[in-house]
């Protein structure tokens, strides 16, 4: 037996002015500053890649809906596919070829979302699935970053040159190789000490503002933080996941840094580098793939933070945000099963509350 909507209408007959498309729209609005900064910083190729990725996501969604026999318009208009494409684009190297974005979008939408049953059903964050899959399949393209060449600055590619870079596969010469995270990881691996690696490579200020090599929309810690605060203000997300995740990373980094400052970077380095903030505010908080209860979210955030730090520090990958979040995504059903709010009038085990003083019990 299964019911779609029971026949007898029940209240409430009033509704908050919310909808899924509004939620998605606000998230995109929050992403806008960091995205525009990425456009400015990495120029036309970044813009082309962004457009290609987003359009591919919409196309993939429309095709999947058609195949699944679902109404295309309402689902396409909910904004979720657009957001997935957007987030994916933000996590790509800005000068990556167009097909990276397109393949990524199809992976995200078709494999990570629609195969699971569409919106709300996916276990993993689609953008992160695509990011990780791309990283494994195309390690070269996914780790070739460029130094910032702001739009209209000398040496920045123009519109046409940009097209050639994104769609023609030119411009590999410009690649500087790696992000700060990648660089530090490699040098540490070669036995160098941080005091010799970091100077000249990393400054907290440029990391915070974002004038460094990195993914399209991840470089400006400040603008992402701004977007995150906006989401908190608009109550699209709650503080639990981002704060606990960042707190865990900061705590571990501080402890290890105190233990051995020559081989373990400090908290600020971890917080402003790579995808930490984008992950904490926009990806770990993905509504569909994170726990629904407050305590579950705290657990989830702590798990994400722990894994990010462990992966970055002790594994072969310089960046761990995507892996960490995917691993925790896999734990979400378990967390939601075991961690639930306490029901009113019951103790944590589900038995009715009893009062020691007998309260108003029968005389």
């Amino acid at each position, binding site marked *: *037996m*299964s*019911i*779609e*909507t*029971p026949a*007898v*209408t*029940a*209240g*409430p*007959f*009033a*509704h*908050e*002015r*919310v*909808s*899924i498309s*509004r*939620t998605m729209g606000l998230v995109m609005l929050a992403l806008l500053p960091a995205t525009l900064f990425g456009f400015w910083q990495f120029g036309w190729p970044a813009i082309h890649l962004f457009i290609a990725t987003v359009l591919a996501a919409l196309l993939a969604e429309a095709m999947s809906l058609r195949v699944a026999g679902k109404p295309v318009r*309402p689902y396409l208009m*909910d904004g*979720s596919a657009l957001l997935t494409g957007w987030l994916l684009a933000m996590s790509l190297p800005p000068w990556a070829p167009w097909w990276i974005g397109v393949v990524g979008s199809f992976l995200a939408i078709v494999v990570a979302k629609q195969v699971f049953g*569409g*919106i*709300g*059903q996916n276990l993993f964050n689609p953008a992160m699935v695509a990011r990780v899959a791309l990283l494994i399949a195309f390690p070269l393209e996914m780790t070739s970053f460029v130094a910032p060449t702001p739009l209209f600055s000398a040496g920045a590619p123009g519109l046409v040159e940009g097209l050639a870079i994104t769609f023609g596969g030119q411009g590999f010469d410009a690649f500087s190789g790696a992000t700060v995270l990648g660089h530090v990881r490699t040098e540490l691996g070669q036995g160098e000490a941080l005091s010799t690696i970091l100077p000249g490579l990393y400054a907290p200020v440029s990391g915070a503002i974002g004038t460094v090599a990195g993914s399209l929309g991840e470089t400006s810690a400040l603008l992402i933080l701004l977007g995150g605060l906006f989401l908190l203000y608009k109550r699209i997300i*709650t503080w639990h996941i981002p704060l606990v995740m960042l707190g865990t990373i900061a705590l571990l980094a501080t402890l290890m840094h105190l233990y051995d400052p020559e081989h373990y970077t400090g908290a600020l380095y971890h917080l402003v580098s790579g995808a930490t903030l984008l992950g904490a505010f926009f990806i770990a908080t993905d*509504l*569909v*793939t*994170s*726990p*629904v*209860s*407050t305590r579950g*979210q705290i657990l989830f955030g702590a798990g994400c933070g722990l894994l990010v730090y462990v992966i970055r520090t002790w594994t072969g990958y310089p960046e761990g945000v995507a892996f960490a979040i995917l691993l925790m995504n896999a734990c979400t059903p378990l967390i*939601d099963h075991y961690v*639930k*709010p*306490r*029901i*009113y*009038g*019951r103790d944590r085990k589900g038995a*009715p*509350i*009893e*009062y020691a003083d*007998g*309260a*108003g*019990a*029968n*005389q």
Partner: protein
Amino acid sequence: MKLFKIRGGVHPDDRKHLAAGQSIEILPMPALLHIPLQQHIGAPASPAVRRGQHVAKGDRLANGQGVISAPVHAPTSGRVMGVGSYPAHHASGLSVPTITLKPDGEDRWGDSIQGVADPFALDPDEIAARVAAAGVVGLGGATFPAAVKLNLRKKYRLHTLVINGAECEPYLTCDDRLMRERAEAVIDGIRIMAHALGVERVVIGIENNKPEAQASMVVAASAYPSIRLARLPTRYPMGSEKHLVQTLTGRETPARGLTADIGVVVHNPATAFAVHEALRFGYPLVSRVVTISGGAIAQPRNLQAPLGTRIQDLIDYCGGFREEPARLISGGPMMGQPLPSTRVPTVKGSNGVLALTAAETNQRDPMPCIRCGSCVQACPCGLVPLEMAAHARTGDLEGAVKLGLMDCIGCGSCSYVCPGHIPLVQFFNYAKGEMAARGRVKQKQAETKRLAEQRTARIEEIKRAKREAMDRRRREAAAKKQAEADPPAPATITEQPVAAGTEA
């Protein structure tokens, strides 16, 4: 006074300004009244009048039956036009036993109507009896017979009477107006109830969006130090009995229990007013204040209307519809019921009639759940609505119950915030209804089984008795044979009538 936090809840747009400024007006007597026999929780009342009979205002039209029931009285003097059935004040629109009364225009009270000079000299039992006889039920919408609640003192150790003036449902202003305009009477009713309950402490909870009501109640209660006012934060569902008590005492009512379990009884201001009328003047409950509001109503108002007034009469008095309403509701928009038509009569529990526009209801087609957790955050009962709904939807009622379905108070906070516009409460209501139906079937099966077992036992018993009687006769026959040889024993003679008795 110190207030405690409750979890969850929402802040709906309260839309009280539509009717809050309108003083209570007495509705001119309608041409016809339709008074249903069941206007309360419990057993329906049984009719006590015949067709064609002339009744005075306040005469009993129907008697309560059983412990949890309430009588129904004539809202005005007039002639009983019929004792039949009429569409109910309920979403189903089914017809229910109803008495139709044609007012004679005199609105004359019966001769036996008489108040008590000093209710505080009465025994608590006597007060409860008078409240019961006046047909007073909980007027906040729950319509539980008020006298039964006053008698809780017999079973529980009570210490506080809480007056629920939260009126947290948007639009509704009838309690607000009552507390503003008839504060003295409300306070008097409260004191009578406190006396009946034997409690020393009274707390009146009023949300901060009703400062005028707070002020007038403070003035009216100033002479009585045992009565305190709690200024409640405006937050839905503050008026949920258990949550209100938690806000005031910091204690949760144990699951499946009553607030009396923690020593508190909750009554509504309108109920207090009705108790005042019943004790001081002997007036049974025959009218109540109803808020007529909503964007589709031309002139929203608070009307004191006789019970049994057709909704149409109320709406007409408010200037009719400004535009075609998208929804017609009895009660508030959060927990109210859709009304099947404007023909249905008002009942004791009618606190509001709302005609809402499409913009107000903001109804949309449901989308899939995006697991956003808004419903979990909003639920004042600590439930996970999205999961309960998922189970209910697939027909897995046991799963939904395990997740706490029976702890859900149906407040609608979850549906209200759901960005997917998923009708969560609708699923819960459906599942609760199914569970109740299953419970009834199970009960019936158990009852059938019990009866069958009883029957088998009876048959066995008869068989056994027959066998014993036969044995005895055989023995007696043998004894007789022997007696023919020996002299008769007197014991055999006395034994016989007992044996016959067993067999019958």
